[in-house]
Structures are given as C-alpha cells and as structure tokens.
C-alpha cells in the first residue's frame, strides 16, 4: 500500500489483457472470477485495468471527476485481487483506485452520499459508526483491564471501532482479552482514549481527514513504549502496519492477533484441550491476506484445535474472493456487498463445512448477514471463537 506512487507509473502499463479479472495464470487448473466488481457489472471499466484507464482519462484531461466516475470507482471493495493477478505486475490497480477516490473527494463527488455519514461520524466521534465517544469501551467496563497510559504493559490490544462499538462484534474483543489473559500476557487497552485507525476514511479517499487522525494515533502509540500492538481487526492491522509509516515515523511493532495467537499456542502458553468435532472452512480477509501476506497463521491455529477439520474453498489465499464489506461498499451499496458475500457463502457451503471462519470483524459481519438472509446452513465465526471454545475452562 503506497501513498506516493506516481500515477503515470501505475496507469500506462495496462495492456487491457483482463488477467486481473480471473485466476488464469499458468499452472492454475481452473479459471475463476476474482474481481467482484467486474464479475457483477461486466464492463471493462470495473476491472483493475479499467481503473487504470480511468486514471489515465483524468491525467489527460479527458475525464473529470463526476457522478459517473464515482459510480464506477466506489463500486469496488479495494480487495486487491486485481493487483495480485495483474500480468504486467508493475501495476497496482487498487492503488490507482484509491488515488481516483482522492480526486473524487477533492472535487466533491466522493464519498458516495450513503457513505458520507461514516466520514461525518469519524470527524465528530472518532469512529465511523455514529456512536458518541462515551459508548467506547462499554464491552470491557466490568473487566478491569489495564491502560498503558497509566501503567506499563508489554502488549497493547488495539481493539478497533467495529469490535468495540458494534455489539454483534464485541466477541472479537472479549475473546482476544480472554485469550491474552489465559496466556498470562501483561496487556492493556486504550479504552475511551482509543481513536479510529482511519481505515474507512482512507479507503473512501478522504486523505486529509485520514492523515490528521493517523498522525495523532502514531504519536500516542509511539509514546506508550509497549513491546507490541496487537489488533483483532484486519483493517486496523493493514492501516497501522502499511499506511501509518507513510504518514510519519512509527516506533511500535504491530501484529495481527491471529499471528500472535499462533505463537502463544506454539509456545504452549495456550493449551487447547477441548475437541471441536466440526468441519470448518477459512475465508482470507483481504487486508490480512493480500495486503499483509498473513495466510498461514490462521490455518495453523485452526489445525491446532483438536477435532476440527479444515476444508478449503477453491479460491483461497492470494486468490481469495472478497467478503464484500470493504472500502465503504457495505454502507454505500449494501446490495452489491450482499451479492459478493453470497458468492463466498455458496463457495463455503460447497466444501461441506459447518463453520465459515475468518479473522476480521468486517468479513464476519457481511458473511453473517448473507447467511442470515439466504438461510444458509453454516455458522460464521471468528477464529478466536473457536479457540476460546477449544480452551475450555
């Protein structure tokens, strides 16, 4: 994820070969769609290459940011599948799409009207969900957790707005705390002092808003002198790990919780004694997978749970199909988000799995909505749910 790549470098090398739209590289046995927007809407413009052409149009003065452009550019979850597939390799269509979003925002055509509430809330409440600041940290009020602002801790758990403020996603935070405690970790949370990481505004193209909060968060996190920051949200992790260093100097180490979990299990600090007799399939969150290269840790954690059998879907790891929730799509275009998620849930059902596990509250939210809407016979769970179950008492 690069905030400074020259636009020309990214645009002019697209030969319109459409390899960005499906898995077609030599050695791949089957061809499967991989770009949700192109698969759904079909026009080349929706593909990764098409976004490069749009940027070209802006640069050459043929296209100006307008509603038409916003319609195309925001119908994209920025899942990065196109960048991963691109045959030219020198192109990063996801980055181009972000740049075009910034142009749209500057010209007053972005974010989409339905997503503007996210930005407004971010500016007013420091979270995108419209929740007043006092609502933060309600999930942990009875837990007596440490604050690194008041005492020395080794690990900061950066909870993230979704796990903090969305009641259905609180279990991410509760599980993480439960597991850190079980492992005897000296950890703390920022509680009401935690600010949104800024992923939502960054992905919507509101760069100025993002930079302000990013700078503040970096300053806070740098000052804590913790050994590590762990996050249970793939979006937060991706932003803290890859984008913050572009804003200013980062002096802390950030780790996705699932990776830390793997370490805790491997070192014997967590013992998984309860058998879970079930078939599970794993959905790679885009920001943990393609953006960050974390593919093995979640699978190793699942394999460490006694009795659990991992059945893989066809599109996994670098070639994973997006859940549909990202980059403002869930809020701005809920039908599109549900369509994307439905493709994924059907793929999960094809494996015969009873559980669709993931490691991101956004993914879980959208996939759970789809399962509920189509009454699919599968449970959506976070990996930490399963580990807590396996932990027993």
């Amino acid at each position, binding site marked *: 994820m690069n905030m400074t790549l020259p636009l*020309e470098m990214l645009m002019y090398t697209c030969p319109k070969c459409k390899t960005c739209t*499906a898995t*077609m590289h*030599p050695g791949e*046995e089957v061809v499967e769609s991989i770009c949700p927007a192109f698969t759904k809407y*079909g*026009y*080349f413009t929706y593909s990764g290459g098409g976004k490069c052409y749009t940027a070209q*149009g802006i640069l050459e003065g043929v296209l100006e940011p307008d509603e038409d452009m916003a319609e195309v550019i925001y119908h994209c979850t920025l899942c990065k599948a196109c960048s991963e597939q691109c045959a030219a390799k020198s192109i990063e269509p996801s980055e181009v799409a972000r740049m075009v979003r910034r142009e749209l925002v500057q010209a007053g055509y972005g974010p989409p009207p339905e997503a503007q509430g996210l930005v407004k809330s971010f500016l007013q409440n420091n979270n995108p969900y419209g929740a007043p600041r006092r609502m933060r940290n309600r999930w942990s009020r009875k837990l007596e957790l440490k604050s690194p602002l008041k005492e020395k801790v080794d690990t900061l758990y950066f909870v993230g707005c979704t796990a903090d403020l969305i009641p259905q996603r609180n279990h991410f935070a509760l599980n993480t705390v439960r597991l850190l405690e079980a492992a005897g970790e000296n950890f703390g949370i920022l509680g009401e002092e935690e600010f949104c990481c800024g992923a939502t505004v960054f992905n919507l193209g509101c760069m100025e808003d993002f930079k302000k909060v990013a700078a503040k968060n970096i300053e806070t996190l740098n000052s804590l002198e913790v050994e590590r920051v762990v996050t249970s949200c793939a979006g937060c992790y991706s932003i803290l790990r890859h984008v913050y260093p572009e804003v200013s100097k980062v002096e802390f180490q950030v780790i996705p919780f699932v990776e830390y979990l793997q370490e805790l299990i491997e070192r014997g600090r967590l013992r998984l004694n309860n058998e879970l007799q079930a078939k599970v399939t794993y959905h790679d969150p885009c920001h943990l997978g393609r953006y960050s290269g974390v593919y093995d840790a979640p699978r190793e954690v699942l394999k460490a749970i006694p009795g659990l059998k991992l059945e893989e879907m066809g599109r996994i790891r670098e070639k994973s199909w997006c859940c549909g929730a990202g980059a403002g799509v869930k809020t701005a275009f809920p039908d599109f988000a549900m369509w994307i998620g439905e493709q994924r849930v059907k793929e999960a059902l094809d494996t015969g799995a009873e559980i669709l596990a993931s490691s991101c509250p956004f993914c879980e939210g959208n996939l759970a909505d789809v399962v509920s809407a189509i009454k699919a016979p599968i449970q959506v769970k976070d990996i930490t749910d399963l580990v807590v179950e396996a932990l027993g008492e």
Partner: protein
Amino acid sequence: MKVFSSPVDSKLAEDAYLKLVDELGDEKVTRNRTILFSYSGTALPIPKTMPDVVVRPESVEDVQTVLRIANQLIIPVTPVASGTLEPSIIPKAGGIVLDTYAMDRIREINTDSGYAVIEPGVPMGKFTRALAPHNFRAALGSFPPGNSVLLNYTLRGHGTHRSNGIDSEILGLEVVLPDGTVVETGSKAFSQTYPESTWHSPWGPLPDLRGIFMNACGTLGVITGGAVRIYDRNEMQDAPLYAFNSYGDAVDFMVKISRANLVEHVTTWHWGLYTIINTLEAGEEMETSDEYTIVFLVEPWQDPGDRPYCVVIPVMTGFKEDLETHTKIMDRLAKERGGRPFNQECQERFPGAWRYWNNYAIKHEPCIAFMRGFALGYGFMHILYAEPKKVVELEKFGLEYIYTRGLQYGTTYYSHCLDQGRTIFLRITPFVDPADEAEHQNALDIYKSYVEEGMKRYGATPIRYDGLVNYVDKAGGFGKLMKMIKQAIDPNNILNPGLRIYDQGW
C-alpha cells in the same frame, strides 16, 4: 494521447441509448462517461475516440436487437471482444460499442471430430482449462489468458501456431449481419434445412465464406460464435531447442523440418526477445536488470556475443519413438546449417526463457510474461508475411530501418514458419516510451513507412488491417469486390465505419 469526441450527433446518440435501454434493459446498456472512456481505445499509442453508448449483449438475440436499432437510426456499431492491441476495436466513428465479452459460453467440445464451439467472450485461459480434462488443447498465440480466442483467431496470425501450417484455426463462424440475418458457414450452413448439420468442415458445395469475416474487424457482421480446431495432446509433447548464428540459417532450418513433417509447428526468436522473456519470467524488472544494456543499447542486428543470434523452437507432438527419431534428424539438419542443439545450455543460462517455452510449447499454457513487458512501453505490431528468402532480407532491412529512426528503446522480433514454409511471419517489435507523445507519432510514421517498404521491396504483406493504410484501394479488383460486398451487406455502413477499411485509412 489524443482523445477525440464522438462525431455522432448528440440527439441521435440519445435516441439510440433510449431505444437500447428500452429493449435490452439498463444493465446491458450504459452511457456512463467513465465507462465510455475505457472503451475509447487500446493500449496502442493510437488516438482514441469516445463512443456514445456501450452495450453488453448476452445472446445472439441481443446482438440482433442492437443491429436492428442501429440500422433504423443509422448509427455506427463497433463490435469488440477482449484484445490488447487491436486498432480495429477503437470506435473511430463514435456511436455504439458492442462489448461481446459477456457472451462467454463454451457451447460444445467435440473430441470426436476435434473442434469446439465457443462464443467471442471465451478467453484463452478459460478455454485451455476446459479442454485439459479431455486431453485436448488449442492453438496458442502470444496473447494473454484473458483475451478472446475468437477475436484473436479471426485476426489470424495469433492463432496459427499449432496446426501443421494451416493458416486459420477457424472451422466455421456464426455471424449476425447488419439486417439481423444469422449466417453459419461451412458444414453448419445447412443447419436450417438439416438440423443434424455440425461444424466439422469449413468447406461445402458452396464458396467458403469464412474468409469474408476473417480479418474483417467487424465491418461485415458481428461474430457471435464459431467452431475452432482443437488438438489431441497425444502421447508426447516436446520442444527441443536449436541455436543459430543467423536468421537466414534459422529460416532455412525451419522450412526444412516443416516440409519434412518433423514438427507440428516451428518458430524462431531473436536474441533480444528471448533475453527479455528470460528476465521477465525470472520475475526481474527489465529496467533494473543487467540484461537491459544488451537488449536496449546494442544494435539488434549485431552479433550478441556469447548468446545465439536466434533460437528455434520446434513444437512436436505424437508418439515417443517418432519424436525421438525426429529429434535426431533435426540435430543433424541443424548442424548442417551451422546450428546446434540448445536445450541444456538454455536451461542453464536462460532458465526463464526455458520455462516460458516449456509452458507454451509443451504444457500449452497461454503466455503471461509478455504482459510484463508493457512496463517497458507499448509494443507495436510490425507484422509482415514474406517468402523465405525475402523474409531473410526483410529482417536485415527491418531491424536497421526501425532501430535507427530515433525511438528511445530497443527493437527485437520473432518469426513463425507457416504453411510448410510457403510464407514466413516476421513480427519486429520496437518498444516506445508510453509517456512520450512525440515518440508515439514517430513510431506510427516509422511503422507505416516500414510496411510500405516491406511491400515494395520484398513482396511482403501485412497480416491484418492496421487502420493506418488504405489497403483496399491498393488491392485492385479484389478491393473492388470487397467494396461491393460491403455495400451489399451493410448498405448503411453502420459496422465499424470508423476503421475505414473500405475508403481510406485514418
């Protein structure tokens, strides 16, 4: 890059849009300006033109509807499939772009007769994967897996690489004419009268009408399906490599082994090209590679020192005993022409090129590494056919002619032996700085004059219409007949009129 506005009257465009939405629905029709722009041109540095409407038909009936409306209103229609570089898919006259990529069904795989019936949206990657379980394969061109099989095959050249010298992979075509008539060619022509008719033969008792739709760039009809040859993988596939110190020796070798039926197909690669592909396949960036110097700074006709001037890649298929014997014979024929077997040396010194040729010639994987070459700039398509001795002269002339005319980057080529050496395909590719508009113009001028010189001096012929030169008026009676055919089939000139095949280039 220049981008022209659509020359179509805005009221006419509006009428067409409304009628199309009315009949096809708004999911298949758009005039979103951002979408229009991405259909205005190709990756080639050729000026673009904005269309007025883009339509995504999903069936033959949808195509008929579009053509009926276009004919009523007399508004241009440019049919496109997925291609990377073809000038024929630029909607120079504005109007409607008909994007056939949504027509992506593989209707039939007939392993008994050896053909498949596909729609224009079927990409090569999908097609090869579908054939693999049947132990069949398709002719591969140097186009990437996302590109349309039918589009590339109907433009020839691309699809001529695997068929024992036959210059077309197309057995038959299903075409919608501007008046909505659906035409099926070859043995399928009788399907209305004899429903048992199939696509097995391109010929019948009547003239072979495939040809008028091949290389026609959608000016005579919209191709909605076609039967293409598919090939048994046989017991063994092989591609033993040979190194030669001159293109002339390589061509002589290619013709000899082709006429003796030792190979199914054979190509030769210039040192610049296999050096590039070796680097790209290894995952390195060309600009930062040590090889950059030799490819882009050494005159391409020079002896490249410790690497062979040309590598010949014979493609073989059949029984193991046959292939082993044929390889021994080729070893001898290569030595007689100053060449040498190059397999082991290639594996050691150029592992990326070795892997590429293995994937392409033995495993039959569509190539992808070439696409990374676009980071170096746009490749032009200076493709000419010529007779063997003349093509050897053309190579000498062409390399120097193109390289010395002030382009920033290098020049290289590959060559196919077609129809048992009756004609040789030579594609010389200079690379052009994608951000330098003056260089684009220079590259276009060089291209046009090179083709003209090639035709004048060496009796060469371009393999497809490039939109730059008026070939029809240079074609005498043939050109006259073409104009008559166009007049009869498309009297309102709605189909891809911007390409101006029938009057003058642009």
